[in-house]
């Protein structure tokens, strides 16, 4: 748990972020002068319609895509100055990814899928404990196609978490799930945040999710439309949509 007396520090900050795809007349600017920051241990929800640049923003923070101009500093590291190998190390040591479509390796069991990322970490979380926390202990020896969507997403979260990453990036984590399961997954993310104090970025279309976040960014056409702080986040279990 976070010690409230401890001084909070900025976990990441971006300044004047520009990113375009294509050339000439086909050039599309997907991030246009984006500047923001986020404190360590906070949940930030990024909202916006399709094509607003929210996934690109997530990929840039994740070190998966380069930027045209601006700066992006995560946990004291300036990403725009890192080469491909250092970016790999950055992802390996600091990040966890959760995707909309889980993307579990189909020929590995649930536990083995989590071990894929455990292998990368010098100090992984105890995997059995994690399986219990995720509520999939009894399904640990099943293949992904033998699990429900919610179970698969729990497994994917476990895979992202096992490294105990400083930053958890979630791209539409409930996009493929029903209402009940979505709430369960969001509660899990909330619980993780409280337990491990990870900084979490959630990209979503679902406006309701913003209520559980400490910080809400709304993107439109590659620009930040609103950047608000939520002083009293709602518990995920109480979200309604």
């Amino acid at each position, binding site marked *: 748990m976070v010690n409230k007396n401890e001084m909070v520090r900025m976990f990441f900050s971006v300044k004047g972020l520009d990113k375009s795809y294509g050339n000439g007349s086909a050039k599309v600017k997907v991030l246009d002068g984006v500047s923001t920051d986020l404190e360590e241990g906070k949940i930030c929800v990024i909202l916006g319609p399709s094509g607003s640049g929210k*996934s690109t923003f997530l*990929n840039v923070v*994740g070190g*998966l895509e380069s930027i045209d101009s601006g700066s992006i500093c995560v946990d004291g590291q300036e990403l725009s100055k890192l080469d491909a*190998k250092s970016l*790999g*190390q*950055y*992802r*390996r*040591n600091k*990040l966890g*990814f959760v*995707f*909309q*479509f889980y*993307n579990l*390796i189909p*020929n*590995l*069991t649930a536990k*083995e899928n989590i*071990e*894929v*990322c*455990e*292998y*990368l970490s010098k100090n992984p979380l105890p995997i059995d404990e994690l399986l219990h926390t995720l509520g999939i202990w009894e399904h640990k*020896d*099943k*293949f992904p*196609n*033998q699990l429900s969507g919610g179970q698969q997403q729990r497994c994917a979260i476990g*895979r992202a978490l096992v490294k105990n990453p400083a930053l958890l990036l979630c791209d539409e984590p409930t996009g493929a799930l029903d209402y009940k399961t979505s709430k369960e997954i969001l509660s899990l993310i909330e619980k993780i945040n409280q337990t491990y104090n990870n900084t979490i970025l959630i990209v979503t279309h679902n406006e309701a999710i913003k209520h559980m976040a400490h910080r809400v960014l709304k993107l439109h056409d590659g620009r930040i439309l609103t950047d608000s702080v939520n002083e009293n986040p709602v518990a995920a279990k109480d979200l309604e949509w």
Partner: protein
Amino acid sequence: MKNPLRKRYIRDLKANKGRYLAIFLMLTVTIALMSGFLAVSAGVQKSFQENRIESKLEDGSFSSKDEITPEAITESEKLGVSIYENDYVNEQTNSETTLRIYENREQINLATVMEGNSPIKDNEIAVERLFATSNKLSVGDTLTVNDTPMKITGLIAVPDYSSLFQNNSELMMDSFHFGIGIMTKDVFQSFPENNIIHNYSYTFNQRDLSEKEKRTLSDDIKVSLVKNETQLTNFTTAENNQSISFIEDDMGSDVPMMKVFLYIIIGIMAFVFSIIIGSTIEAEAPIIGTLLASGYKKIELMTHYIAMPLMVTLLSAVIGNAIGYTLMPGLFKEMYYGSYSLPPMEVKLNFEALLLTTVLPIVIMIGINFVALRRKLSISPLNFLRRELKKKTNRKAIKLPDFSFLTRFRIRVIIQNIGSYITLFVGVLFASFILMFGLSLTPMMNHYVDSITQSAVADYQYILKAPAEAENPGNAEKLTFSSLETYYTPANKNLEVSFYGLRENSVYFKELKISDDEKGVTFSDGLAKKLKAKVGDMVTFVNPYTDKSYDLKVIGIYDYPGALTVFMSQKQLNTLLNVDSNYFNGYFSDTELNLPENSLATVITPEDMSQLGDQMLSSFEQMVPICLGVAIVIYLVLMYILTKLVIDKNALYISFMKVFGYETKEIRKLYLTATTMVVLGSLLLGLPLVTLGIQGSFELAMMKLSGYLPVYIPMYLYAEIVAIGMMSYFVINFFHIRRISKIEMAAALKNKE
């Protein structure tokens, strides 16, 4: 309206050009080899059979100590045969070769002039083409025969020596040291009487006799000749004469062997295609589900997926046949004409070959893929949409032991790709077999020659026409030598076996305990292995010239490899042959003996053994690079296609792993090490199976040969095969490493399903 799915073919070809190119090359090379081989062998067989009739090939021959009386010939001819004098002499040439010289024959076994002309003048000779090639002789050259220079006027092929065996009991043909020559009648008749072998050839008057009738009639001739007091020294039917029949036996087994080779390759490639299609179906499951839900019929999808293997096979068949009929005949002609004395041939379009190399591959390809596709497409559209491609999705995952994560991951990769890996194992096994066959030929021949050289008991072994005392006997030892025959069931023919009658306590066979009182014989281990005889067995031998049979008990087996020999006491053998107890017709000696020239039949020296080795190696050395090349191509193609499938299938997950922070070398450890383990395992596991296969094949091949060649595979060959296999894999691995490096994280980011 044309099916719009057709547009995918070209795109699929472009996207997977490496894979399809490898399959195309493999099929094309196989079909080209096959069609070229079948066209040439059919052409050779045709011209060979026609030449046998045109050149009046004998149906059998016999030799006698002296000229046979006209009465004996007339009596035998009454049985329904025509007998022709066919005398010859064996003369040494200046190139230390033996030339068997006939007069220019006009009634039987006519020579076909391949180049130049028949001899007309006294100092002219025509020689057999293969002998000339092996000894670098050409028309116009001078060859000294028995100290007389003769001008070579022509190169010929003779039907009674399509295979150049000097003696019928020899294991190998030898065009380097033995050849045939023809001279004018006048020159031939000037050879001294002592040198002339009184040989006769016969033909059956009735040309449509069955094989059984031919054998019976030949036996009757033999009996008639013996009855008329002919002292036969040799009697051989064309069927049993290796010089005549060996090529047919050889081709008889070459053709089915090549066909089996074709079927195996096509079968393997059909399985490769079915695995590719299976993998494509897995990747395209939601698309297939959508198409089926939209009204596409399964048969339409089946036709779509089967079209690619069909097109690749068809194209391979067309191009393969074109190459087969244009470039390949030269290679195969060289193979046949480099081994046999054959008349000229023409390569013509062969209907059977065309059928085997076009229709059959297509049928195999469609058949195997149809069965595989029907199974794959048997699930419902909904299951395709849900990617539930296996009927039993709730089957429990195989629980793996508590190995390290890396090991378990690799095992999962192997389980995931078990179909590809099994096909790879079969392919590796097949290629290793070809490789071991090619690589084992030279050491096997060397080992054979070494072992018979080492087991040669004396530096000189003399076989005499009649007993003759040596002027300088020294430590020479007399022996009685004879040849008897025994029926060899696997080949359905009689086998000639040498009988050595030795004296008690022979100094040349110290390990062999021969006693005059023994009631039995000792077999050489070569003979025991060939006949699968063991101590205590009774074996029947027949004297082919008297038809007397003898039941002999095997009381021992003696280490005398390669030779088909029976050892017994001289006294016993003389009694068996019904000759005087002091009779002998040979010597073992460590020094050269002075013997009356006209008494000598054969001398065998260690030099003859090394000559035999040279000939054996030269006969097979052309096979070595062919086998090596074919095996490496199979290794490369199968390893490339099948192991690339593993990476292609997992490309998306490899992309995710990069997103998670895996480095390329770590991903290689996970995916490529699994494949490396399978390739190494296939090579190692294949070795005992390949060894069994080689042993079986050689035993089968040995059935048609008169001798016995022990299968010998030195240990280093196993290491060589694994090394060649692994080197081929590392070439492929290099491409895979590049492929893994090139997989981008974008694939993971774009994944929306």
